[in-house]
C-alpha cells in the first residue's frame, strides 16, 4: 500500500493547500454498511430518500470523513501526522457517483505543540457538501535502526 508524503515542520506554511478528488460508489456504500452496521433507510432506500425531498439515497457522512482521513494522512501533513481533532458540518447531501473535491488549507501552525490546523471544504461543482477543520500533531521521524547503530559504534 502507498504511504503518504512525509512533510517535516519546516516544509509547512500557513496557506499551503491540497486538493483531492473522489466519488463514492454503490460498492463503497455496501461495504461501509457492513463495516459500521449502519443500514439506515436514507442510505439504502432511494424511494424513501425521494419521498423526503432528496434526489437519491444519501452518501454516508463518514465516507466523506474517510476522504478527510486520506487528505491529512497522505497529503497534509501526511505520513508523520497524528489526528488530534476533526470537526465537520454537513451542508448538503452527497449522492452516489458524484465527483467531489476536498480542498484543505493550513490555517495555523503551533510550533510549541507541533499542531497543524487545517480548514477544509468538500464541493461538488459550486455546491458545498461539507465544511470543517482538522488538527494533526506532527510526530518526529524517529529512525530506531540508526539509533541502535549509533549505540554500538
Amino acid at each position, binding site marked *: 500500500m502507498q504511504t503518504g508524503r512525509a512533510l517535516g515542520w519546516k516544509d509547512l506554511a500557513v496557506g499551503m493547500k491540497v486538493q483531492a478528488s473522489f466519488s463514492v460508489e454503490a460498492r463503497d456504500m455496501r461495504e461501509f454498511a457492513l463495516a459500521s452496521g449502519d443500514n439506515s433507510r436514507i442510505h439504502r432506500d432511494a424511494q424513501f430518500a425521494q419521498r423526503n425531498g432528496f434526489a437519491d439515497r444519501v452518501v454516508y457522512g463518514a465516507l466523506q470523513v474517510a476522504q478527510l482521513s486520506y487528505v491529512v494522512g497522505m497529503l497534509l501533513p501526511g505520513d508523520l501526522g497524528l489526528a*488530534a481533532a476533526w470537526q465537520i458540518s454537513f451542508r448538503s447531501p452527497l449522492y452516489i457517483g458524484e465527483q467531489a473535491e476536498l480542498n484543505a488549507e493550513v490555517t495555523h501552525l503551533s510550533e*510549541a505543540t507541533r499542531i497543524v490546523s487545517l480548514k477544509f471544504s468538500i464541493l461538488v461543482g459550486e455546491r458545498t457538501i461539507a465544511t470543517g477543520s482538522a488538527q494533526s500533531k506532527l510526530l518526529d521521524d524517529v529512525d530506531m535502526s540508526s539509533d541502535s547503530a549509533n549505540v554500538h559504534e
Partner: protein
Amino acid sequence: MTTEELYTKLTPIFRDVFDDESLAPHPAMTAAEVESWDSLSNIRLIVDIEQRFKIHFTTAEITGLANVGELVAVIERKLVG
C-alpha cells in the same frame, strides 16, 4: 487589555477545551484541579489560545508553567510585544 479582560476571554476557551461550563480560570488554578486536563487537552488549550489571540508560543514558554497565572503572564507579554 487588562488582566481581568484576559481571564474573561479565556473562560470560554477553558470551558470548551475541558468540556465544563462551570470552569472559571483563576491565577492559582493548576492542571491537577481540572479532571480532564491531560496532555492532549493541554495541547488543544495552547492551540486554541494561539488562534484566539493570534499569538505563537515557543516550546520554552509553555514548558514548566506552574499554574494558569503563569500562562496568563506569558500571554500578556506576547500581546504587549
